[in-house]
């Protein structure tokens, strides 16, 4: 149920016919886990908090470093050395004190992933490595909840929305992890991709189609292109078996 304050606060989006009060109510009920409080996580968390996603959990095990600040806009100079989730929760609760925001400082592993995602209605992939992405991918397949993937490199970004049983999973398109390394990223790239992921979350929970399902968005801000590549389930996929 929306309060009078909600109706005022979210008035401009409630006015969108396809979204309306029903969309806002559904978003208010949703519990969304944001995995990673870095470049993508900053953008996703800010927009979902502003939009009124009712319950947000943000997970990250790292502390803020100076070299994060070109893109991780939730963290400021004063936060260097502080845990990213504490820094994120501090800003997000100031932006919207009417929603529930929880920060968990933990590394996501095969051993803890299911307990970390307990009660989640959806997971946003704001990670910087495929090893952990695959752990989350397998978990969302077990839990049958959507997974909103995003990734960046220099001026390039990717995004797709994975719905177990309906779409290919992450491993259907990316079978193996590339070597882990610190990659070059223009700060605005995760800003754009995170905004797209947050939009997908809002659309999913308010029932607005079409989503980036069965499609991989390939974004290139250097040459101003957004393109969609059709992706298919893979019967040989070790994670979902093409189901």
């Amino acid at each position, binding site marked *: 149920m929306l309060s009078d304050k909600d109706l005022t606060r979210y008035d401009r989006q409630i006015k969108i016919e396809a979204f309306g009060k029903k969309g806002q109510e559904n978003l208010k009920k949703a519990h969304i886990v944001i995995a*990673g409080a*870095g*470049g*993508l*996580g900053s953008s996703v968390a800010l927009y979902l908090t502003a939009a009124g996603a009712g319950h947000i959990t943000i997970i990250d095990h790292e502390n803020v470093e100076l070299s994060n600040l070109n893109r991780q806009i939730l963290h400021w100079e004063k936060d260097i050395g502080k845990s990213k989730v504490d820094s994120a929760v501090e800003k997000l609760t100031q932006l919207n004190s009417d929603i529930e925001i929880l920060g968990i400082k933990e590394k996501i592993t095969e051993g803890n992933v299911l307990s970390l995602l307990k009660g989640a209605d959806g997971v946003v*992939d*704001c*990670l*910087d*490595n*495929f090893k952990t*992405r695959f752990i989350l991918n397998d978990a969302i397949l077990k839990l049958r909840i959507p997974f909103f993937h*995003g*990734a*960046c*490199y220099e001026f*390039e*970004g*990717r995004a797709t929305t994975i719905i177990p049983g309906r779409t290919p999973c992450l491993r*259907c*398109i*990316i*079978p*193996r*992890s*590339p*070597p882990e390394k610190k*990659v*070059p*990223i223009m700060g605005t790239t*995760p800003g754009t991709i995170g905004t797209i992921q947050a939009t997908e979350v809002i659309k999913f929970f308010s029932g607005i189609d079409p989503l980036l399902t069965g499609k991989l968005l*390939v974004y*290139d801000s250097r*040459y101003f292109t957004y*393109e969609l*590549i*059709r*992706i*298919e389930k*893979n*019967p*040989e*996929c070790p994670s979902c078996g093409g189901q």
Partner: protein
Amino acid sequence: MVTVRLFAAFREAAGKKEVNISAKNIEELIRLLIARYKKLAPLLIKNTDPLELEDIIVLVNGRSIWYLKGVETKLKEEDVVSIFPLIGGG
């Protein structure tokens, strides 16, 4: 002819976003591509003989070649092959 769609840095290296190539499998297609667009070679392959691809994504009609037959995946005239870098930053 197989339609090859190149994305991101590969597009820049080739100077083209779409190329039509006649090839019987992925290996032949990659060899013809790097012969035609030399700047693509270091981006697409680690080894020439045997052909070993870099960490890239190659989809044939939306399906990863790694679940098909890798570089030996056969191609048909009307196939669409999408090639792009694997990226994972956040």
